[in-house]
């Protein structure tokens, strides 16, 4: 079983539309949505929830007003400025528990935090593991790790050939959590200066974690000279040939209809995406 994760660095380059299409094209796979704080894959795959689970992670401090002597030690020692006027700001609290260990009046306790939900759902393309981080919550990296673990368990049980994950934007903890230990990263970029800049950074993260990468330039025809620059960069880095996908309104139209674009449109765009999936399968040695 092989795992491919779709990343981009920059947001909005088309990761989810591509993963939705792979869902339709690939056989015998489990799908995972690793973008847990702004998940969108469900809008294309229209899952039917089979299992909903709470995600408990991290803790937040609470101060017992009756016991608190207002000595101020917790406020002085908290490095996250999370305690003001002997009250904890749950948004700033990082749950380190330092205050609870040092409070001389034993007035601070740490309470477990329910920070989201994760789901196993049925879609017409097979199972999807996805999650929803609570608003303004932390620990998205841990929730991503959990989504991947559940996807792997499911893939083992079903003897699936592939796990296809839709990753989050950026390069920080949820990205690292989506990437580390995967077999391949597909980096979806666009031919803009931002797209190039962000691609280079996310590719550095791939190298850091020793995950091989393939690149796809979405909407390449918005700026062909930038598309050529990306291609040159990928060649220099030894990433092999780059897939170019043209700008096409069908992507947005398919999204509005809630179906993967390869099912909505049968023009050049869809054949490019199909060829990209074949390339991934090849690269994964499947």
């Amino acid at each position, binding site marked *: 079983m092989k795992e491919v994760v779709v990343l*981009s*660095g*920059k*947001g*909005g*380059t088309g990761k989810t539309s591509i993963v939705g299409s792979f869902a339709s094209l690939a056989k015998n796979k489990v799908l995972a949505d690793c973008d847990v*704080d*702004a998940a*969108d894959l469900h*809008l294309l795959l229209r899952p039917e929830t089979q299992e909903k689970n709470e995600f408990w992670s*991290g*803790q937040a401090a609470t101060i017992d007003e009756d016991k608190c002597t207002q000595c101020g030690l917790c406020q002085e*020692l908290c*490095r*996250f400025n999370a305690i003001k006027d002997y009250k904890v700001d749950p*948004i700033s609290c*990082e*749950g*380190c*528990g*330092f205050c609870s*260990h*040092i409070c001389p009046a034993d007035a601070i306790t740490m309470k477990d935090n329910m920070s989201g939900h994760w789901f196993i759902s049925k879609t017409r393309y097979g199972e999807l593991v996805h999650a929803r*981080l609570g*608003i*303004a*919550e*932390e620990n*998205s*990296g841990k929730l991503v790790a959990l989504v991947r673990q559940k996807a792997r368990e499911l893939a083992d049980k079903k003897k699936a050939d592939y796990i296809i994950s839709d990753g989050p*934007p*950026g*390069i*920080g*903890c*949820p*990205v*690292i*959590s989506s990437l580390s230990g995967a077999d391949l990263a597909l980096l979806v970029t*666009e*031919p*803009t*200066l*931002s*797209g190039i*800049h*962000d691609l280079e*950074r996310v590719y*550095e*993260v791939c190298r*850091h*974690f020793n995950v091989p990468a393939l690149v796809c330039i979405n*909407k390449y025809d*918005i*700026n062909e000279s*930038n598309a050529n620059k990306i291609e040159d960069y990928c060649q220099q880095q030894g990433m092999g040939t780059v897939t170019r996908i043209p*700008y096409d309104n069908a992507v*947005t139209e398919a*999204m*509005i209809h809630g179906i993967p674009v390869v099912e909505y449109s049968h023009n050049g765009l869809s054949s490019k995406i199909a060829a990209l999936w074949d390339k991934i399968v090849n690269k994964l040695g499947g």
Partner: protein
Amino acid sequence: MIISVASGKGGTGKTLVATSLAVSLKDKCSLQLVDCDVEEPNDHLFLKPVIDKKEPVAIPVPKIDETKCTFCGKCAEVCAYNAIAVLPKNVLVLPNLCHGCGACSYLCPEKAITEEDMIIGVVESGHAGNIDFIQGRLNTGEAMPVPVIRKVKEKVSPDKTVIIDISPGTSCPVVESVKGSDFCLLVTEPTPFGLNDLTLAVETVRKLGILCGVVINRAGDNQGKMEAYCREQNIPVLMTIPLDTEIARLYSRGITLAEGMPRWQEKFESLFRHIKELVDERSSSLKR
């Protein structure tokens, strides 16, 4: 006044709006542009600032003096992030898991733990013409953007007009960046993904008690649902930017909309006036 530019979904045009707003206002008021998208900062590509100061951002991570350590295990017990493992004859520190809270060094009974700085990113400051420019940059391979964002925000001068560009999403980096703003401009696109993520962004901003308004980017004839949502939620739609390949091409070359199509400057100025009215209205209603 601090205006943050956020979105939920990535790639909706935060950078386009933040940089064009800055360029349109630069001769009208004393302005600071702050790029808090430290994972993928892009504003510099459009403003091409002169950077004259780079300050490394470090978090304090524990360093164990094994000549003093008795391997009692207290540090590992108090570490909420499993960043320390105490073995019978040595101690393993996993700096990438450390949040730098300082509990281990303070609570070590042998005073065997000191802290050393681990550099995770940089804060760069400079100027682009008369715009004060600040950005943070997380080093690739590092997981924690929040300490870099905190350092960037220490540079915010609230007596100026401050525009903060925020990363996509709704979790901790977004909260840390948006916190303390007078207004949050939410940039979205009229697609199902855009609407889904806008509703999440609105929940986040409301949880922080910050006033917000919407900019609809890449608008065509399909934003009915989005406008209906905004009406229902009583969120003003302050600007609409059409779906236009010319705008996309300018963006691809790193040219702000305000410079590439100067007629937009007036629209961004009026966007700013509108925001200012909403902020003033709220502060006077809070005083009453």
